[in-house]
């Protein structure tokens, strides 16, 4: 690649819309889309079929890093908790990967599936950051629980720093799928 060409950073929200707290990752991205994060940072809603996400990422194969942000119930931290980690990129066994692909093409949207499928098809850069928000309410609608509502701005700050500061991003703890070794941001 021409040294003069600066590789871009992509921030992607991965959630279902309109599911209260469970849409918090996409809400973070919606806020960031209205802000100037610099010419090298692209913010997109990647809440669609993970195979299509992989194909979209392959359109521009030299991403400097990717930052996924998602509301995902791990049950490890209280609602509204923000955790961040570098994904170690280790895939589960092939049967599980194939299951993820089948789920993807039949319409299932889930952060872990997106990570698995995108990695399987070599669509991810080496540095993959994940920011997760622990949700509480799982209802149809737009209302957020107080804890998750309060987490949106800190999550925006976390994602912004990861997008703009490569050194900071590279220092996140390395974690397998599920974020067991994630760092608490709040």
């Amino acid at each position, binding site marked *: 690649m021409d040294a003069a060409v600066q590789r871009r950073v992509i921030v992607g929200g991965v*959630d*279902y*819309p*309109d*599911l209260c707290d469970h849409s918090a990752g*996409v809400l973070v991205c919606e806020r960031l889309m209205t802000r100037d994060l610099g010419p090298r940072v692209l913010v997109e*809603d990647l*809440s*669609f*079929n993970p*195979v*299509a996400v992989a*194909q*979209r990422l392959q359109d521009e194969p030299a991403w400097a890093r990717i930052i996924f942000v998602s509301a995902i119930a791990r049950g490890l931290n209280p609602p509204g908790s923000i955790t961040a980690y570098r994904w170690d990129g280790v895939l589960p066994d*092939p049967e599980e*990967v*194939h*299951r993820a*692909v*089948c789920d993807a*093409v*039949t*319409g*299932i*949207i889930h952060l872990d599936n997106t990570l698995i499928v995108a990695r*399987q*098809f070599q669509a991810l850069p080496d540095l993959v950051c994940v920011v997760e928000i622990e949700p509480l309410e*799982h*209802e*149809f609608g737009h209302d957020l629980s107080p804890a998750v509502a309060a987490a949106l701005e800190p999550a925006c700050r976390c994602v912004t720093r990861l997008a703009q500061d490569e050194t900071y991003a590279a220092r996140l703890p390395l974690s397998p799928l599920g974020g067991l070794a994630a760092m608490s941001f709040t």
Partner: protein
Amino acid sequence: MCFKNLPVEFDASGRAFLREGIADPYATTTGPANVPKQLSHEQITDLLRRNGHIKSVDFDPVTRVAGALAFHTVTDLKARKVVEARSVATLFRGYEVIMVGRDPRDAIFITSRACGVCGGVHSACSAMATEMAIGAEPPPLGVLIRNIALALEFLYDHPLHLHLLAGPDYSAMIVAQTNPGLLDLAKRTDASHGDVHGYKTMFDLMEDLNPLSGRLYLEALHMTRVAREAYVLICGKYPHPQTMVPGGMSSTITLTVMNEMLLRLNQFFDYGKKIACIWDDITEFFYDANPEYKKVGARRANMIDTGIFDIPGVYDAKYVNAGTWGDARWYTPGAVVDGELVTTDLHVINMGLEEFVEHSYYEEWTGEGQKTRYESDPTGRPLSPHHPWNKVTKPRPQGQNWKEKYTWDTAPRWDRQAMEAGCYARLWNTAAARKLPDNPFIESTGHSLKVRVPAGKLPEMELEWHIPKVWNAFERNRARAHCVASTAMIAFNNWLAAMERVKIGDLRTSTKFEIPRKGEQLGVGFWGAGRGYLTHHLSLDRGAVSNYQIITPSTWNASPTDRWGQPGPYEEAVLNTPLLEETDDPKGFKGIDILRAIRSFDPCMPCTTHIQCGDEMITREVNTCACGADA
């Protein structure tokens, strides 16, 4: 006379009426004649008690299908057969509940969420039900663009099923585990159509069906992208389009859009040739290896389809003319009973339709004290109290019991027969009926469908799909593969017709309409999904939906045993399936033949609305499928 079980007759002018002298014409006390039956619960219990080699084998969930399907079998591993089969839809869909009281235009967007693969067909079907109810006839380009959009959705769907969901069952990786002897034979067997698909031996071909690494698997993923890209040019996004409206589509059509679409559509010409030849070779290889494979997934050739892809100027969105515009469709509607096409008339198809809930988690809505809302359709043809226009959805969650209720699916029946739906039903009806519009690419012979596919990298080819002599899992997959080429050529025919509209500057794609605020109106969308038959029946009352009923292909195929003991299509197919897997160890039993039988239907269990039943109340907690897709 097409009805053998319902007491419907026709006079000399073809007018349908109920046979006279029958007190209760739609009584359910007498079941259909000459249909297969499940063993009774008592018989199964006795078999299990007396035979150690007869065991329950459950598949929960059935993997590599869309949505939530479980399957219960009782299997005789000594006789290598299945003695009981029960299909279980494990999630409640609930659109029928959600839609009541809403503006019908909402249905286009809400019911789309019934599927994360083929939301567009629900949008289109819903728009058509509404346009029939309110009288909004689409302009020519609106009809043509709608046809192209949904053809593209099928071109996404068919490769996905064939090489991602069903295909692995025939891959070297799986066959090595279940039938290693077959793999040895594959290494010694030349593939018949190597000149088209490029594989010298069947082993080479089966290796490329391997999940994740096989070239056919990866190519199918790529082709889904090609179809999706073409689709979003006119639908805005996939899988839930934003441009379906009653009376056409709201897409803006330009020469650029048309060219961009063609650029992608014509990639399916060569792919259509290749995929048809691949599945011809797979089918013949298994038949030659062991003729018993003809029994895997076998059942009566009972099929139903509403036809799809309308002709501008013939389609007028009026129920009274449905027989005419239905017959004119590119894929002909029809009901096939025991291999014979008994009708192509959409009115007759609609008239024979009933839904039963004997083994489903719903309450009955007919019976003493219940009034049948519509005793006839808008043309005076008789309707059953169990017809969707008369149905009331009354969910009743409860414990699972094979003798009583065990699934969220209902049991739709046509003339009280268990019918199956699939894109293959389209091929069958169209091949048999010989009603195709004049065109340069597709020909119906009465016993086959010939498709002339233009040259790409491969030379021009004529593919021919023959109505099969046996009906089984392999023939379902083979027919689905042939649907790629026929659907691509229908799309191309429509593209050419659309270009004629563009050339003369007629770019209207929709008709202005208003939702009537007075009175009652009925509508039905007769359309199709990639997986076959699709109807949305609705009634409007003073501008709001008063009833909404969806029957999908998997409603038919995954249906439970009915009140007369007649199994649903998955169940019947599995009951007829010999267990050819090479294993004597019950612990190593994978049930590959059962799974091939089930997956050949391309199951798609609507994967959306969940329920909470703490107070036995349905709540609207909606988990959508790919609803946020902006691709």
